[in-house]
């Protein structure tokens, strides 16, 4: 069953056309992550789902109810803001229970649900504190708790973890995943962080300049990016792109395609070999990063951008050495002159 349907949604701020003809469907219970470069309209889209921004044209449908004209409070949603937006003049307990207070729920029920949410997030000891006296991670938990208490139809998150340090971010990421498992509520989550997107999402929506580039499961997007943008956006280090006429490129004709303008290969899909005729690409090592678990080579093959290779473990090959690279046919991505992926090669 669909929880949210976006039907040709457009958004204009005065003359600026920020979202262009977005059509999407999110299933009930699905965890959807919106990713895309800064300014592409993720927050705007989320805020339109929340009812905080009016829709310029198109239909916003929850279940089978058109909600374009409903106020945020009538949509039965909860939202976690990047800034947390905790009410500074209320203590944690009141912050958590504020939505119930507004709905004039009985004190007992309020107490019940607040302490339940506080229990889930480990906030029991902080109920009397004011937001001022909380650490960043604790504030983040309160913001999440406020959403949990609501028990809404839909959870919305706008970069909820971006103000936390790396360790806390991982911890909270796991909490959110657990939360989704436990509650099974539809969640829409905006992030910059690829790892968050890959680990949390049932489906990822990649946006660029106000348009949807591709929608799919994390692995689907990773293995079958629909175009250059998605291919370059997901994955770290980024996918290497080599022009079809690059002199350093030496592909057997079985791997090439006459309409391919650009070949893409992910750094982790490259085998390092001797720089001889069997190599698909040859270059010299410019920079080496040894991370322990992996070694990353930045290879100069005559183009402006280095060719990046990631091999597992510690590799002792030194800077300045000439090496060859080999790819498996199924790991090679081909893109035509419009930047769209050419998929037939894979089947054939």
């Amino acid at each position: 069953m669909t929880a949210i349907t976006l039907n040709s949604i457009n958004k204009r701020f005065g003359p600026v056309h920020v979202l262009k003809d977005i059509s999407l469907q999110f299933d009930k219970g699905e965890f959807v992550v919106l990713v895309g470069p800064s300014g592409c309209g993720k927050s705007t889209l989320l805020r339109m789902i929340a009812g905080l921004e009016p829709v310029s044209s198109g239909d916003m449908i929850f279940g089978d109810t058109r909600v374009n004209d409903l106020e945020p409070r009538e949509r039965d949603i909860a939202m976690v803001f990047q800034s947390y937006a905790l009410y500074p003049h209320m203590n944690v307990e009141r912050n958590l229970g504020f939505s119930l207070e507004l709905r004039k729920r009985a004190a007992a029920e309020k107490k019940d649900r607040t302490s339940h949410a506080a229990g889930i997030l480990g906030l029991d000891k902080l109920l009397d504190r004011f937001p001022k006296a909380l650490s960043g991670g604790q504030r983040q938990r309160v913001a999440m708790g406020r959403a949990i208490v609501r028990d809404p139809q839909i959870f919305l998150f706008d970069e909820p973890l971006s103000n936390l340090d790396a360790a806390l971010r991982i911890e909270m990421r796991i909490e959110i995943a657990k939360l989704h498992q436990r509650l099974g509520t539809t969640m829409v989550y905006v992030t910059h962080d690829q790892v968050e997107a890959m680990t949390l999402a049932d489906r990822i929506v990649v946006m660029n300049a106000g348009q949807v580039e591709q929608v799919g499961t994390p692995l689907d997007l990773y293995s079958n990016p629909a175009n250059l943008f998605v291919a370059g956006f997901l994955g770290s280090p980024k996918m290497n792109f080599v022009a079809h006429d690059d002199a350093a490129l030496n592909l057997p004709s079985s791997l090439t395609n006459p309409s391919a303008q650009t070949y893409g290969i992910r750094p982790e899909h490259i085998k390092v070999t001797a720089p001889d005729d069997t190599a698909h690409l040859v270059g010299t090592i410019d920079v080496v990063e040894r991370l322990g678990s992996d070694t990353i080579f930045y290879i100069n093959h005559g183009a402006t951008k280095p060719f990046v290779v990631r091999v597992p473990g510690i590799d002792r090959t030194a800077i300045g050495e000439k090496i060859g690279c080999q790819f498996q046919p199924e790991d090679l991505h081909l893109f035509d002159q419009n930047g769209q992926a050419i998929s037939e090669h894979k089947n054939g």
Partner: protein
Amino acid sequence: MQKTAFPIGAVLRYFAIALYVLFALFPIYWLVKIAVTPDRLIYTEGTQIWPSNFTLDNFVSVLFLTDFLVYFKNSMIVSLGTAFFTTLVATAAGYAFSRFHFRGKTIIIALMLITQMFPLLMIIAPIYKIMAGLRLLDSLTGLIIVYTAFNVPFATFLMQGFFDGIPKDLEEAAMIDGCTRFEALRKVIFPLTLPGLAATLGFIFTAAWSELLFALMLINSDAKMTFPVGLKTFVSKFAVDWGQMMAAGTLALIPSCLFFILIQRFLVKGLTAGAVKG
């Protein structure tokens, strides 16, 4: 890393601070001093820092032999009324400026700026006519209306600043939590602007308490005079009775000074951007 200042620097700082305090307080001190100097000493000891004798006679006669208390009461009504209504109207307007983008916003802001730009004298005659038409001449209500109108633009900008300091996320969160926009304003934003509100109230109260021009033009009966007008009649009536005038002046200072001392902290705090964050 806290650098300890040279003692000489600290001494200079305190010296400068003392100079400021002295400069601020001396004229007020002088006012009070002449008010408590007995009449017979005013000329002989007029320029001494410290009179050889004190008296409260001037205060007694001002309070009980003149209309001072009537003026005082009128001024209180007008200033409190103005402060209240101005703050109410300006809060709503400041909120709209801070939180909405809408057609005509620039024009309205420009108009409000223009109201701050021309000599009020220019419009006293037309206002007089309008107030006469509304039968609001010589009435405290009329004065409150005019004062409110004149103070709204500045108070609006002030309030807008306070609202701008409150993150928009907060009321959006409240609206998602179940508030209407107005409820969000009342339950979440309003409590956070209290310092700003106090500051605006105080600012406007002080301004209304001081206003002379309109009070002079729009009020003519003794029973409706506000304090500045009353004091001005003092000046013309008792041109030589320095002691009484200064006593009256001292008494008139009390409410606005009290009010101001109470609110000046909020004023600085409220004007500080982002004071309520976090």
